């Protein structure tokens, strides 16, 4: 909420001209979510400091987007940090300076001055490293103090708040444009909805330095708040040609394995499902519809159903598969339903084949029995393909035996444990099974994923 700019250039009071703010006055600037006070704690020939203090109205700050019914909308750090609100205040309070205008001393605009900036407090997403990655390439000397979450509970560790000092001899307008873009980038949040105009702002304020900044991709992506399509457009304008591949697909896989594994897994499951002339398949836990997409082109399938417990993910699947735009005869083949494998569901009965790809490990062990009954007892597809991580393989990326591949995994099985479970299904529900491995085999520990194909 506090920004100070100090110079020891002589005469230091030149700063007042450049900022277009008289050192003897306390000024107030209003903007959307509150106001800013501008004053000079020190102003003499040797040293001049201008301070901008945000005065945010916490009651009026409640954001109009997002979930208004979450408590964090009401009690949060926004009134106290340097965020995109600070950028807004900078533009509002120092509009001449940032635009390189100075009525009284125009010659000063392009003169690099020794400047020191202090921000308190600056939320940094990604810690001190990111702070340096942002400011070091621009030539700043950065000193940062990280604040603990609570001095009374040191075991809670550090907060993401820093008091940051940046020093460099630089023109004021460039400095302000750096701050304008990088404050919200470090915070990794915006107080307003990010739209297309943001690209123009980014390109205008980033002109002359952003194109050559080694972190331009991260800056662009964060500034445009992870709206990949906007980020791609901005990069395209900046880079003109060769667009980096990874920006095209927004990777949300948090699994600590190569993203390729999931593709391999799905293709193999798809092949396995289609290895016999089945006409109907249900993908239990279809997520965003990746397997369904592989299944769709196979005309041997007349009924394809995807079920997932999360309605949000089904909406994404619906968009990915472009279901609304399919011709009638194709649309009739596919259906997406919201359902849960811990409840009996008559809509999944009567299928010839079913897939459970990386699903069982997301259930608490005591709910697994319900899934078994639902799938093998009630729905009874002729063929069921089940995949789950092979816990033994985890040693290839971690020494921590308790660590799982995904924060939502409730368990991960060794190959023996998986086989034991398969035997139980065989005995209880009259299925036979074969176990196959998915992904590259590693000596002693096996492949990353294990798959069982049950038939009755």
């Amino acid at each position, binding site marked *: 909420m506090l920004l100070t700019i100090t110079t020891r250039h002589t005469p230091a009071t030149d700063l007042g001209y450049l900022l277009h703010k008289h050192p003897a006055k306390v000024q107030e600037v209003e903007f959307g979510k509150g106001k800013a006070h501008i*004053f000079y*704690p020190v102003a003499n020939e040797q040293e001049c400091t201008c301070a901008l203090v945000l005065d945010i109205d916490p009651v009026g700050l409640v954001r109009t987007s997002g979930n208004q019914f979450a408590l964090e909308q*009401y*009690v949060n750090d926004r009134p106290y940090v340097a965020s995109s609100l600070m950028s807004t205040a900078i533009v509002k309070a120092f509009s001449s300076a940032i635009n390189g205008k100075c009525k009284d001393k125009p010659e000063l605009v392009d003169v690099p001055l020794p400047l020191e900036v202090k921000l*308190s407090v600056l939320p940094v997403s990604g810690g001190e490293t990111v702070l340096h990655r942002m400011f070091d390439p621009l030539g700043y000397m950065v000193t940062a103090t990280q*604040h603990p979450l609570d001095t009374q*509970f040191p075991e*809670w560790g550090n907060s993401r708040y820093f008091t940051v000092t940046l020093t460099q001899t630089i023109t004021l307008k460039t400095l302000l444009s750096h701050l304008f873009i990088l404050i919200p980038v470090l915070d990794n949040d915006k107080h307003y909805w990010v739209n297309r105009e943001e690209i123009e702002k980014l390109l205008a304020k980033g002109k002359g330095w952003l194109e050559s900044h080694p972190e331009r991709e991260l800056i662009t992506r964060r500034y445009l708040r992870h709206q990949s399509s906007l980020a791609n457009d901005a990069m395209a304008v900046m880079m003109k040609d060769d667009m980096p591949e990874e920006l095209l697909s927004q990777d949300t896989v948090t699994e600590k394995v190569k993203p390729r594994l999931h593709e391999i897994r799905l293709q193999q499951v798809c092949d396995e499902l289609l290895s016999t002339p089945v006409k109907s398949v249900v993908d239990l836990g279809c997520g965003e519809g990746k397997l369904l997409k592989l299944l769709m082109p196979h005309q041997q399938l007349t009924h394809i159903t995807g079920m997932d417990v999360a309605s949000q993910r089904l909406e994404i699947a619906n968009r990915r598969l472009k279901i609304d735009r399919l011709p009638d005869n194709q649309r009739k083949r596919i259906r997406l339903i919201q359902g849960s494998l811990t*409840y009996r569901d008559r809509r999944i009965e009567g299928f010839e084949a079913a897939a459970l790809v990386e699903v069982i490990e997301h259930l608490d062990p005591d709910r697994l029995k*319900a899934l078994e009954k639902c799938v093998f007892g009630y729905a009874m597809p002729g063929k069921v393909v089940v995949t789950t991580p092979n816990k033994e393989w985890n040693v290839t990326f971690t020494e921590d035996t308790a660590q799982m591949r995904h924060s939502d995994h409730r368990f991960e099985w060794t190959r023996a444990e998986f086989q034991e479970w398969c035997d139980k299904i065989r005995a209880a529900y009259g299925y036979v099974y074969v176990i196959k491995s998915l992904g590259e085999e590693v000596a002693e520990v096996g492949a990353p994923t294990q798959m069982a194909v049950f038939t009755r």
Partner: protein
Amino acid sequence: MKIQMPELSLVVMVGASGSGKSTFARQWFNKAEVISSDTCREIVSNDENHLDASDDAFDLLHYIVGKRLKRGLLTVVDATNVRSEDRKKLVALAREYHVLPAAIVLNMPEKVCLERNQERTDRNLAPHVVISHINLLRRNISKLREEGFRKIFELRGPEQVAAVTAIEREPLWNKRHGEEGPFDIIGDVHGCYEELCNLLTLLGHTVDAAGYKVQVNNGRKLVFLGDLADRGPATPAVYKLVMNAVNDGVALCVPGNHDNKLLKFLQGKNVQLVHGLEKSVAQLEGEDAAFRESLKLFLDGLISHYVLDNGKLVVAHAGLKEEMQGRASGAVREFCMYGETTGETDEFGMPVRYNWAANYRGKAMVVYGHTPVYEPQWFNNTIDIDTGCVFGGKLTALRYPERELHSVPALATYVEPTRPLRIPGEGNNLQHEQDDVLDIEDLMGKQLISTRLLNLVTIREEYTAAALESMSRFSIHPKWLIYLPPTMSPSETSTLPDYLEHPAGAFSYYSKNGIRQVICEEKHMGSRAVVIVCKDSEVVKRRFGIEEDSIGTCYTRTGRAFFNDKETEQAFLAMVHAALTERNFWEEMETDWVCLDSELMPWNAKAQALLQHQYAATGAAAVNAMTETIAALTAGADNPAIASLLKNYEARAEMCHQFTDAYRQYCWEVKSLSDYKLAPFHLLATEGKTYFDKDHAWHMEQLGRYCGGEGNPLVPTSWRVVDLEDAAGVEDAISWWEALTAKGGEGMVVKSLSFIERGERGLLQPAIKIRGREYLRIIYGPEYTLEEHLTRLKQRGLGAKRALALKEFALGVQAIEHFVAKEPLRKVHQCVFGLLALESEPVDPRL
């Protein structure tokens, strides 16, 4: 002339155009009961004379009639119905819904019909059409009975129509709503007279065995589930006693398949003397003709089943599905006596019975026999109490409404059963097994849930969708979720200048609603926790159907496990268990499990993430930013304008420190189990009992006995009862709240002294919280007490929150009452699931 019509009939009007059917129907039936083909024709085609539309019109007519019959409503079909094929469709419809088909035939002279037809302005049929109607009618009027009509009334000429003085509706014989019991319902006796006498004696009745008389005591009534005859040693004696009791009006009896076969024998029909009938026949040889005759009449007069106690209880020999209850048809009678079979036979060569009870969803409890079982068990609100006495098992009675089972052992094995009573590996609990997987159909979509406190609670479809994900991914096993606590509304916004909430608001809410006595309870700052503790892991398996080795559970208000790992949870519950055991809880409360509503502390035990990410973070940002800002302002404080800004920021910085202090109050480091504290405030349920009829002082006193003391994880809660008409007492309570919150306490909860209270406008809030001024900083933000903020914050509406609290309260109470009444888990889960779904309703989270 009076026409007598069973109250649940499909009445088919038969008559030519112009015979006066519509007029007749209008005169004698209610408007909604009469479905006319003309009206249906008009609905589908805009024109009631549009004959092209007849097919669609009749489709609609049949559809409407079907819906009405399904709902058990008498329905009159107003169409000519002169053709046999039209009538047959209606008879089939009546049969489908087990409703009696009746016909009222208006057989009018040609002249009358033609004249009336002539006078009609809206439609004028050609005379030959009318004549052909009349001819058709006359030709096949005699076939009506053959077509399946059970009641036929023919009115010849306008004189007879005019002579009708009333249509009397006869109640169905099987409906005995007014009979409310209490009942002693007795399973298949099969001629075991001695055992029957023993059982009746055990039930407290006075038996004169030699005189075949029973004096039924305590205002109870006996219900015999049929199969009194065959296989056993004394069939005639059993009948004599039962017939006497029925004649005396102290017993009801429904027929079993064996009784029915004996009837056929007595009627002289050709029946094979097998399956024990041969024994009955031999025993009856010694009886005189008069008895045989009265037995025949008795058996012939037995009603297939009874619907008792205002529809809450159904008794039938082989059970009865919901759609057949209170209906009358051959199929119903057949089902009542024989049940349904799947068409397969088991390894003993016996037909495999279709287990209708597995799919039973009805409201009425169904008590039946027919299939001998080793031990009766509740299954979807049905129970089979044939415990195979004649096969050497026992004779069992169910007491209604108490749901108690009483039985006497067989004195001998009179017949070896074809299929053993107890098949190895079959001792499973059917209900627990079925409850392993609940059906999604019972939960999804828009839900209307009946509750004792609020009638129907509506849950919108989008909320049930959200609940499905939450329930499947994050909740503990549904078998543990027998209750969820309701959300709690704060008090009315205070009009006092410096307060958002103040006790006066809660007091005035209750006194305005006519409540005089309230209880004030200290509000602990922890997390709401529902704790279930069982006497041992055997109880967990038997009562809750949970297989894993545990002694209970501890879950949050959204049904999630309180502790992240099972080991800590079980170790903590073991401490609670020890505390209860040490003070004789199990003996005193006569139970082997308990469910407590409580607060678990410290707050950071569950809310660590929230604390760090939200509260501590905000505090760290605020305090540090304020400190630096004040330093900058101080540097320039020579300037009076800066000095005044400094003053303002200093005040605000103080509030930021108070904010940090506020949340710190409720945190302490959890190093071991003994750092957890549980403060119970509602004793929700124990085996067979809930305690919503006890007032809150009782709850606090009762629970207080198990709280406190060295090393006890159960800690007491301070409370006081306040008489709202005693001004000094009210003042005292306010000072008490002020003292509590001044020490940093969260505040207090005010409840009507009675657990459940109603005011003029219905159910009252079960509890209202009044949070302390400092505590509210962590809810409304560090600087909420600044006047400019407070004025705006005071404009808050409590309506949505309060409506939600009531709905959730009703659902929570209903869930645990269902569980205690051993209802199927489906019904418990519907309430809990609905409550969780309501939690996705958008309500200001600061309330």
